């Protein structure tokens, strides 16, 4: 694995980089050594705090001074002087005083310091305070888009362990069940599967193309700082691909993340995970971070005795390193992020589920091996005197290589991708009228092997975008955007988007959105479950650019109303959403004949409607609840007539209770979390077992988790998934004839594995 991105001038980067690619084991060892090196320094830092008024310096009393991320702090005396026990240096010291700018400065050694406090700029103080009181799922009253922010605290509630599993306590996203072959949980929004979502990492498109099916499992949960979920039409800035919405993931930043972090997870189904993070401030401007993740399952599970594994065995190693540059004086910020991932999964018939038994034709075995490398560079410049004006530039490269066998079927895909985006933000007159404009370019090269067929292709596109936002502060706001793209296979086209927000009365927001999106059809990468069936594939070509088929295009529009309220002195909010997606062009995946799978262009209508009513309420000071009712109508004109989309529940109910005890004087507390999901009727694709037009009944799932916080840097959690032990009885159709046409391991409407318990711990270095 060699780098193709060249940033040679930076030595620390090269160091990181070579460790990354060439010696992962050594790297783990290094992390372990650093992690266990004890911190024994009991020295004191002395200094004074002053303020300059009319050219005269005077001492400032009562300034709060503490080490970032710790509880070690002091307050300045009447003469402005202070003393504070110092941790291992360098470390970051925070100066905080109401009405003054909160400063965080890096202390390299124990030399006495003198700090000058400045009068606050309002926004900065705002930010500090908001982050302290932030709810773990935050809805916005003022933004024109329907965005739900999920904080890292909320992510702790999810049982495990990666991005695809992070949405279990969040009704905006529906999580489906992992199939027995890949163990991957697919997600849906507004009734449609993830390829119709734009999934970005720090605003760089990430889960797309070859990584569409499994990409969400490539981001470990502990790496995630927050997730922003946009329902409905989103911004044009990140491309033309989003149709039902956007999920953006922010990873932890080396400057603000815990310096050392350790997480260990162990589940009864045999899954083990370990996460190690190492972050440090190198000097005033640079900080660096290293995030290492490994997971493994060696245990064979077959709860339903069908001779097939209920979940794959395998392992993943995932390493991410990043450099952060911040220069408050000249307004430049930047990130350089590198990631390497290797994953191997084996599934299939229990006795012989080893790579050696592959293609023996005696046993059905599958292996999916993935290797991936990502590099991204982000820089931004904020004009110091005009903080409303900024430039942003991002460039990303990824190389994805999947080699997979499913029984005697082969599916290999390689995807090299390059993406770059330049954005300029500024105002028209004042900050009530802002705009974003820029250009983007993307290049995707695919090599795809489906059984004996080769589908190599290259996608190139360049686009220009402009987005204008108006905000009248209290009553309404509007975002209008558009982009023009020139794509070698989609042609030249315009993508319009609009979002509006109106506040009719206090604590409410009425939102409307409408927009279009389109995408290249990657029919195999997006429908990999077809490979674990014996169905005969056919593509009904019309001479289009995508496997003989056309591209996909849809319009999405919706209304959302949010109302906050106080009841018995407790806070709550109620949201009602309605969204509809209308496909203009679509590739229909037709499972409606047993033993066959057909792809063809949509003729007629295809749409998805979703109504959601959601209530959040603080039942008591330590206890909050969230409940949602969702109903779906997702229908497509198949060649055999209009039908509901298969494996799409007609209803979903959701309830979550969340308890957090009051911490005692040592900071110890309990956290408990209980989630109930009800999944409604699902139409099943035609197959020999269920026939045509069969439906799976609705059922409920219960998850719970209990966490004991022993100290503010150490906690242990236990939990259970699917506590009522609901299982799909026969997940694999024709399991006794795995190479026959009727074999089908893809029709999964409920968990295959029953009740599952897990235990884990989290430790950090307190700063």
């Amino acid at each position, binding site marked *: 694995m060699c780098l193709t991105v060249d940033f040679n001038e930076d030595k620390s980067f090269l160091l990181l980089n070579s460790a990354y690619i060439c010696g992962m084991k050594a790297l783990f060892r290094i992390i372990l050594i650093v992690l266990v090196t004890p911190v024994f320094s009991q020295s004191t830092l002395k200094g004074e705090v002053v303020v300059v008024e009319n050219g005269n310096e005077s001492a400032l009393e009562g300034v709060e001074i503490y080490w970032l991320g710790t509880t070690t702090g002091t307050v300045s005396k009447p003469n402005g002087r202070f003393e504070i026990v110092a941790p291992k240096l360098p470390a970051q010291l925070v100066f905080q005083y*109401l*009405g003054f700018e909160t400063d965080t400065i890096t202390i390299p050694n124990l030399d006495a310091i003198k700090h000058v406090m400045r*009068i*606050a*700029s*309002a*926004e900065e*103080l*705002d930010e500090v*305070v908001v982050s302290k009181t932030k709810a773990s799922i935050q809805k916005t009253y003022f933004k024109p888009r329907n965005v739900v922010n999920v904080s890292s605290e909320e992510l702790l509630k999810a049982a495990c362990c990666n991005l695809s599993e992070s949405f279990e306590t969040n009704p905006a996203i529906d999580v489906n069940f992992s199939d027995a072959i890949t163990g991957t949980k697919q997600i849906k929004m507004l009734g449609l599967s993830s390829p119709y979502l734009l999934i970005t990492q720090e605003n760089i498109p990430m889960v797309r193309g070859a990584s569409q099916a499994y990409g969400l499992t490539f981001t470990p949960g502990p790496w995630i700082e927050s997730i922003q979920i946009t329902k409905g039409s989103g911004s044009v800035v990140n491309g033309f691909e989003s149709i039902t919405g956007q999920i953006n993931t922010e990873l932890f930043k080396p400057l603000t993340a815990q310096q050392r972090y350790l997480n260990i997870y162990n589940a009864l189904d045999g899954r083990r995970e370990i996460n190690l993070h190492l972050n440090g401030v190198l000097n005033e401007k640079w900080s660096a971070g290293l995030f290492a993740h490994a997971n493994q399952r060696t245990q064979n599970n077959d709860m339903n005795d069908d001779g097939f594994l209920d979940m794959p065995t395998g392992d993943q190693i995932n390493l991410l390193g990043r450099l952060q540059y911040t220069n408050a004086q000249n307004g430049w910020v930047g990130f350089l992020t590198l990631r390497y991932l290797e994953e191997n999964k084996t599934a299939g018939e229990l006795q012989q589920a080893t790579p050696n038994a592959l293609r023996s034709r005696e046993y059905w075995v599958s292996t999916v091996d993935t290797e991936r490398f990502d590099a991204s560079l982000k820089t931004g410049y904020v004009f110091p*005197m*005009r*903080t*409303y*004006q900024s430039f942003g530039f991002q460039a990303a490269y990824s190389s994805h290589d999947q080699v997979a066998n499913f029984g005697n079927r082969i599916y290999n895909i390689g995807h090299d991708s390059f993406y770059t985006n*330049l954005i*300029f933000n*500024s*105002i*028209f*007159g*004042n*900050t*009530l009228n802002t705009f974003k*404009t*820029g*250009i983007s*370019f993307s290049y995707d090269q695919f090599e795809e092997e489906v059984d004996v067929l080769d589908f190599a292709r290259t996608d190139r596109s*360049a*686009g*220009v975008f*402009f987005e204008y936002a108006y905000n*009248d*502060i*209290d009553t309404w706001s509007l975002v209008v955007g558009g982009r*023009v793209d*020139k794509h070698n296979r989609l042609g030249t086209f315009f993508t319009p988007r609009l979002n509006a927000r109106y506040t009719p009365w206090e604590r409410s927001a009425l939102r409307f959105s409408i927009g279009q999106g389109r995408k290249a059809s990657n029919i195999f990468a997006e429908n990999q479950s077809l490979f674990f069936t014996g169905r005969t594939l056919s593509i009904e070509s019309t001479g289009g650019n995508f496997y003989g088929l056309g591209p996909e295009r849809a319009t999405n529009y919706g209304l959302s109303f949010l109302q906050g309220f106080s009841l018995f002195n407790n806070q709550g909010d109620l949201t009602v959403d309605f969204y509809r997606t209308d496909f203009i062009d679509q590739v229909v995946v037709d499972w409606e004949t047993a033993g066959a799978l057909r792809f063809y262009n949509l003729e007629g209508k295809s749409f998805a409607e979703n109504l959601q009513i959601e209530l959040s309420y603080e039942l008591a000071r330590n206890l909050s609840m969230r409940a949602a009712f969702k109903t779906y109508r997702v229908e497509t004109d198949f060649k055999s007539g209009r039908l509901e989309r298969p494996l799409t529940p007609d209803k979903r109910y959701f309830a979550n209770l969340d308890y957090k005890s009051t911490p005692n004087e040592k900071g110890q507390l309990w956290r408990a979390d209980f989630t109930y999901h009800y999944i409604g009727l699902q139409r099943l694709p035609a197959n020999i077992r269920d026939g045509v037009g069969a439906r799976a009944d609705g059922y409920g799932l219960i998850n719970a988790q209990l966490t004991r916080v022993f100290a503010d840097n150490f906690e242990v959690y236990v939990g259970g998934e699917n506590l009522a032990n609901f299982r799909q009885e026969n997940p694999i159709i024709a399991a006794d004839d795995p190479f026959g046409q009727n074999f089908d391991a893809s029709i999964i409407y409920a968990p295959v594995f029953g009740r599952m318990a897990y235990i884990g711990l989290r430790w950090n270095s307190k700063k």
Partner: protein
Amino acid sequence: MKKFLVVFAVLLLPVGVNAQKKIEKVAVEVDGVCSMCKARIEKASFSEKGVKSASWSVEDHQLTLIYDASKTSIDSIQKKVSLAGHNTPLFKAPEEAYQSLPMCCKYRTVSDH
């Protein structure tokens, strides 16, 4: 690609034009209580021509202003804010304007938070 660069350059034109402006950034303390006050104070600031950015903090009552000093001054912005009913370092809000504020915004009587 070339075409896109041209379009992008055209979109950036308005930025290049305002080079002769004299941009200043100042923070002043303005009396107020809640998020309704925030909206009122910011709206009043924007009603003065030349104000580029105005942001009032509920927490520390600082109004941060970025404005074009060739078009307006910090004094005239403060005047506008005081006329909306909020005291500034230079101007006390007229009694009439203060009385017309909703109950929750009466900073002279409502105890802070």
